[in-house]
């Protein structure tokens, strides 16, 4: 592996970790609202969150490029304020990743909140537990599987991202050239050996992640109880 390859590995890990941290922070309250709200906005929001699942990455990438670039609403405002616009930058691909992986964080969390239901929290509240205490000692342990699945899926999905990053980020080494983009670049350079090594690494990693996810999905006691309830 060349230094350039290692640089891409490190950059990809940074992108994956940053996306996961940001998405867990954003997705938890959003998933909570989706799980328990009776608002008439619930369905439209649910549809919006799921949009990246069906939208071609190029569409998302195209809109982001327009928004974040020097003439875009966001990029242009930043430039006017004396900052750099966000197209072709790490921050730009990070924003793209957060949007693109949003359903992978929100859906498992909402599912696990819904499965838990409000009963455990009502009981905890009646015993005098404050809101932070209820989250820490009731929600976290009961929905541990949901959090782990959301985090691993988000991380793995970010690693597998290609179209959005290629459009918003270009392929700048050390800035936006993540593994998936580098593999593409290696094949264009007819550098099949390097492409092989990186591809095999990603393949093994993706399989390992899915094993973790399915392991938690099927063994989770909360989920089993939910299935039994559903059958009755």
């Amino acid at each position, binding site marked *: 592996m060349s230094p350039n390859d290692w640089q891409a590995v490190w950059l990809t890990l*940074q992108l994956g970790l*940053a996306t996961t*941290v*940001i998405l*867990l*922070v954003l997705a*938890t*309250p959003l998933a909570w609202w989706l799980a*328990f709200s009776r608002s008439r906005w619930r369905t439209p929001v649910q549809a919006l969150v799921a949009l990246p699942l069906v939208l071609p990455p190029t569409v998302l990438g195209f809109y982001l*490029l327009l928004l974040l*670039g*020097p*003439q875009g609403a966001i*990029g242009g405002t930043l430039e006017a304020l004396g900052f750099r*616009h966000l*197209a*072709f*930058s*790490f*921050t730009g691909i990070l924003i793209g990743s957060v949007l693109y992986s949003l359903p992978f964080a929100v859906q498992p969390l909402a599912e696990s909140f819904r499965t838990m239901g*409000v009963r455990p*929290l*009502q009981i905890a*509240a009646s015993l005098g537990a404050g*809101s*932070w205490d*209820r*989250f820490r000692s009731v*929600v976290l342990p009961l929905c541990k599987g949901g959090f782990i699945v959301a985090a691993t899926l988000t991380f793995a999905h970010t690693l597998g991202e290609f179209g959005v990053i290629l459009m918003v980020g*270009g*392929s*700048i*080494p*050390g*800035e936006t050239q993540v593994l998936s983009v580098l593999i593409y*670049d290696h*094949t*264009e*350079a*007819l*550098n099949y050996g390097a492409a092989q090594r990186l591809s095999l690494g990603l393949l093994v990693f993706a399989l390992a992640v899915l094993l973790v996810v399915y392991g938690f999905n099927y063994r989770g006691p909360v989920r089993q109880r939910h299935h039994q309830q559903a059958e009755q």
Partner: protein
Amino acid sequence: MSKRPLTPCLWMLCWLSVAWFGVLSVKAAPLTLAAASSLRDSMNALVQQFERDHPEHPVRMVYGSSGKLASQIMHGAPYDIFFSAHADYSDRVAAAGLAGAPPVAWAEGRLVLWHPAHPGLKPEDLSSAAIRHIAIAQPRHAPYGQAAMEVLGRLADDQLQQRLVFGENVGHATQMVQSGAAEVGLIALSVVRGTALRGTSYTEINPDWYQPLTQTLMLTRQGADHPSAQLFLAYLQQREARDLFAGFGYLPLTQSLEPFHVAE
């Protein structure tokens, strides 16, 4: 029922991520060169020499079709020097007001018919039934693809249109032939002279059959401020650099890249 149960933990995570970006953003950017795919092998060789001679001036490369790179620069891509395989694309970037110095034509590229499995094939033989796919770069944004279309138009065989497969750039078109998916490709001489394809069979196309592939280089507005840019441009003018590009089949056009030096 509680609405906001997670505040403290979330704030901690937020600040951690902010601190992380602070760390990320302070590193200085290396000199970033955006070059047409056809230049990949020659430019990599040159940059390797440059970094050996000037280890304190790191360089990073971005390759793509000239049209794609030009469009990226116009959308704000942080490239310091743009190497286009056709004067058109550097002119467009300059017309958008993004040039640090006017583009300079420095060499001419050549189109070849690459036929690793059909030695001796001539352009006129493309009509043969043995040739089911002809790989070319996307003519809408890749100069070698545009030149290939001109050559095919000259052969005046409508059947050929149905045999075309389009790569995103010359490198991608080459890969299509290399993988065996296409029998032949109309690609750059500099690519078949590269290490990966050396010794494979190709036929040079008569240069009168297509508009000259004038290679240009242009310092971008952002590159005008980069401390390594002038050093790299000076390096390009040295005998060794010129010989290196000549070895990849480029015909030199200028004796000096003098117009590049930005007036202080």
